[in-house]
């Protein structure tokens, strides 16, 4: 029995899933002033009549970190950045105090210039004086060789709340993103830790001794201990939970589009061969571009409650809302009103809707029914436009080998799965516009909580092997090994799968349920002086994204 809870900005949803079936669901309002209490109350309600001994684990998607950022309740962060030669960066938005230090590691992880120790002790004093609470340390190419980050961290000692080192958050190359990711992690670290400690204590008091897993933006989970060190990964896990919920409600194996149409926004996701498409580099959080792996999503300011009006002689919908639909006591027309006018939706304010539509119909020189249809058609067109633009961008993602270029793999959606208030009404219109089949589930209200419950631990690793330097590195799991000079691609791949499996186990995956896969792998001959000398091997591996299991049927 797994408990899934997804806390969003306005609502908190909970679900209990056992043996592939939904046993219980719940929906409450989020109390933004006491997020912990919100979760705790919901959890208690959920398990009220449940035998606690049956609970295997708790999966939690929280806005604790997101909220801390939005409300600016974050730690004061001192950043130490080793940028070496290259671009001239402005990191003023990535820390309360940002210090650039000497020293440099190159693209192969070779130390070109050492850290200046006196510089670090001066910075330490400055940070202490200016009351920096949390520290981030990031070096260029630190994923290839983290020794400078570690050295600086050791020099700072335990004077500060937490220290986040850039290389530990992602093995991917992108220095500015590494800086921003590290900053965010340091900034939300204390808030999340307090929350996690609270959670642990309360569960203990309640006598629930089960692991707590936290949802990540890539639709997977991590154990609470890992989350305490990498709270940045919990940011924006909400959409990922919805996505996983959708995946649980429909089992797909081809390319497709997932739509979540709400009151104000429509979220769009894509599946390639039934597997979620990820952001190419990492998710953006506010103005911060990060290295956090996340399910690709794009959002339009378009929903049932979007503001419908004439602008420059054109019918416009959204991107903002102007209160509730007229049908439900609002003052301005919305797509929901159009649905009411067409008799697709029942509402008390139908008369007022007709009155408002009559005005608009005159301007458009159409009948009332035509006007209502036009609103819905426009809504579907806007979705199509964005889907097409996203697909064009996705299908133009850069490739680096002749094989990939000539294969020209493209995402070609075969279906649309849709959830949200207007799902049932919009489904036939979408089917007509996209010329593909559209499905919507009978029950979707707590798809996000179901998604949270069924998510499994995920990890991606980026292995780099340099047989000349006899080094193997996997920054995500802090593995830096010395290897034999004859290390091969096959050995590297096996080792990568082993590391992924092991890491997934540490994140809380059940032993017999870990699928690891190689996503990318390359071996380059490093030729020095015209003879084949050694190898530069790169392997990217991950746990296969997906669910613990598919739902067997509807609620019991």
């Amino acid at each position: 029995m797994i408990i899934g809870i997804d806390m969003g900005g306005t609502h908190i949803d909970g679900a209990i899933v056992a043996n592939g079936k939904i046993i219980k669901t719940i929906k409450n309002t989020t109390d933004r002033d006491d997020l912990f209490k919100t979760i705790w109350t919901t959890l208690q309600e959920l398990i009220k009549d449940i035998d606690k001994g049956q609970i295997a684990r708790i999966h939690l998607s929280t806005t604790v970190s997101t909220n801390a950022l939005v409300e600016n309740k974050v730690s004061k962060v001192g950043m130490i950045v080793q940028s070496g030669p290259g671009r001239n960066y402005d990191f003023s938005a990535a820390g309360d105090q940002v210090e650039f230090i000497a020293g440099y590691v190159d693209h192969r992880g070779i130390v070109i210039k050492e850290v200046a120790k006196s510089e670090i002790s001066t910075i330490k004093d400055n940070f202490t004086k200016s009351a920096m609470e949390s520290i981030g340390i990031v070096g260029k190419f630190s994923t290839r060789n983290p020794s400078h980050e570690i050295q600086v961290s050791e020099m700072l000692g335990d004077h500060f709340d937490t220290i986040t080192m850039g290389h530990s958050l992602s093995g991917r190359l992108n220095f500015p993103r590494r800086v921003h990711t590290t900053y965010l992690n340091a900034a939300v670290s204390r808030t999340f830790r307090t929350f996690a400690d609270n959670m642990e204590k309360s569960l203990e008091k309640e006598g629930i001794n089960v692991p707590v897993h936290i949802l990540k933006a890539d639709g997977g989970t991590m154990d609470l201990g890992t989350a305490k060190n990498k709270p940045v990964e919990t940011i924006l896990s909400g959409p990922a939970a919805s996505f996983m919920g959708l995946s649980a409600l429909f089992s797909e194996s081809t390319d497709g589009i997932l739509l979540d149409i709400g009151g104000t926004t429509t979220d769009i996701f894509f599946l390639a061969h039934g597997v979620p498409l990820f952001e190419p580099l990492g998710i953006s959080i506010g103005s911060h571009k990060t290295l956090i792996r996340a399910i690709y999503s794009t959002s339009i300011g378009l929903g049932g409650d979007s503001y419908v009006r004439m602008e420059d002689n054109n019918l416009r919908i959204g991107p903002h809302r102007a209160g509730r639909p007229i049908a439900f006591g609002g003052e301005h027309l919305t797509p929901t009103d159009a649905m009411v006018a067409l008799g697709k939706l029942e509402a008390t304010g139908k008369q007022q809707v007709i009155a408002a539509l009559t005005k608009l119909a005159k301007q458009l020189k159409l009948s009332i029914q035509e006007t209502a249809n036009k609103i819905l058609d426009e809504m579907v067109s806007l979705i199509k436009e964005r889907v097409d633009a996203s697909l064009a961008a996705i299908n133009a993602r850069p490739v680096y080998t002749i094989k990939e270029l000539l294969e020209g793999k493209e995402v070609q959606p075969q279906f649309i799965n849709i959830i949200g208030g207007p799902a049932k009404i919009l489904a036939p219109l979408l089917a007509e516009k996209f010329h593909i089949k559209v499905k919507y589930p009978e029950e979707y209200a707590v798809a996000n909580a179901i998604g949270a419950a069924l998510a499994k631990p995920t990890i991606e690793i980026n292995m780099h092997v340099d047989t000349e330097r006899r080094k193997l590195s996997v920054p995500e799991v802090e593995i830096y090994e010395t290897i034999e000079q004859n290390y091969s691609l096959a050995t590297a791949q096996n080792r990568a799968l082993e590391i992924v499996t092991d890491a997934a186990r540490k994140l809380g995956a059940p032993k017999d349920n870990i699928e690891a896969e190689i996503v990318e792998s390359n071996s380059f001959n490093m030729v020095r002086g015209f003879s084949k000398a050694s190898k530069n091997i790169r392997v990217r591996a991950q746990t296969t994204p997906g669910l613990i299991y598919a739902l067997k049927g509807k609620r019991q």
Partner: protein
Amino acid sequence: MTKAKNRLGLVFFPAFDWAISATHPEREERLLYTQDQIFEEGIQDIDGIEFYNPGVASEKDIARVHFAVPDAASQLTQSHFIAVGGAIRAFQAVMEKEVDKSFALVRPPGHHAHRVVYGDRGFCVVNVEAVALERIRQDYGDLRVAIVDTDAHHGDGTQDIYWNDKDTLFISFHQDGRSLYPGTGGMEEFGGPAAYGYNINIPLPQGTGEEGFLYILDNVVMPILEDFKPDIIINSAGQDNHYSDPLTNMNFTAQGYAILNERLNPDMAVLEGGYSIEGALPYINLGIILAMAGLDYSHVFEPDYDAEKLKQDAAITDHIEKLAEIIYDLWQHKEELAEEHFKNKKEVTRERQIYYDTAGIMEYQVQTFTLCENCSGVNTIDSKNDEHAHIFAITTPRKACQECIDKAYALYAGLSKRAYTNIYLQDRPRDKYLSK
């Protein structure tokens, strides 16, 4: 967020699954560290820098420029069609105003590929820039173009292709051919009868550093470009003038390449040679990208950069200053010089031996340029190699007059297949390419 002053399109295609051979300088690893540097520096996140995948060039694209013997399909590998396709995509991005400038980081290079292609020479089979340029001329019309070749090796292939084309100014500065492959590139190689003075070679002494390259740029290249007023400037961006290049003996730097690109301000750049793949390419390419995008490159240095050690010898400076004066003077007097050379001539012939170092083939050819009052005239190539090929190739230039077009077709029709292994007609005005 950083925003590029100039919108820049990048075709970054390292062809990680292609090599001439396992230990050849032109191998899978070549752009690996450049990719690392580009990724790590967050170039993908700069607002205004767009990445494009290459297209795949067609055989017709190749035929617009080359006589591949016996045909393009048998001489080119997929990687060649894609390298050209990459340059075409980059050029199109500028022509379509998707971006202000573009840089095609593709491999293998192309500037040693002449009009006739029997195989690989200087790691080149097909002239990437020239094929891309002729494609955009075909699609977008007449263009006045300057190609500035900053590779350490003389761009002899590009020189051959544009030898008699007054609308394409070719400037190559390179390590003096007396000390480096392919051996050509003296300043007396000044263009064909219809374009005398529009092929400019600047052979530089070994050990030329930042000072010398930038002196040539400021005192020869830029003034000539001001006179020529091109619609488009293309940098044939070879990177082996770098002090760490294993195949050359020059002392140029990443900073120098960046400054050069800022001042030259090319519309497009295409990667050529450069085989210091670890110590130079990551930094030069970063420098060129930032300079082209109009971003700060002042912190781009090689790990082992030492200004003092790279300081240019006074004797070299002296030599370069004199050279600059001579070459600019030649350019200013090109019309009088052409008059001297070609007055009252009906045709001009040029005999050459061309060695394909990579393929190990020797070619002997005679080019004949007819002089026409109304256009740049029909020209022909009679070429043999030491592998029993003997071809005859006829070209009617882009803006050929009707008389010359008719003459070319008559000549093609009259040639007997018995005398040659292959006969070609390149009809640029009508974009038709025949062979028998």
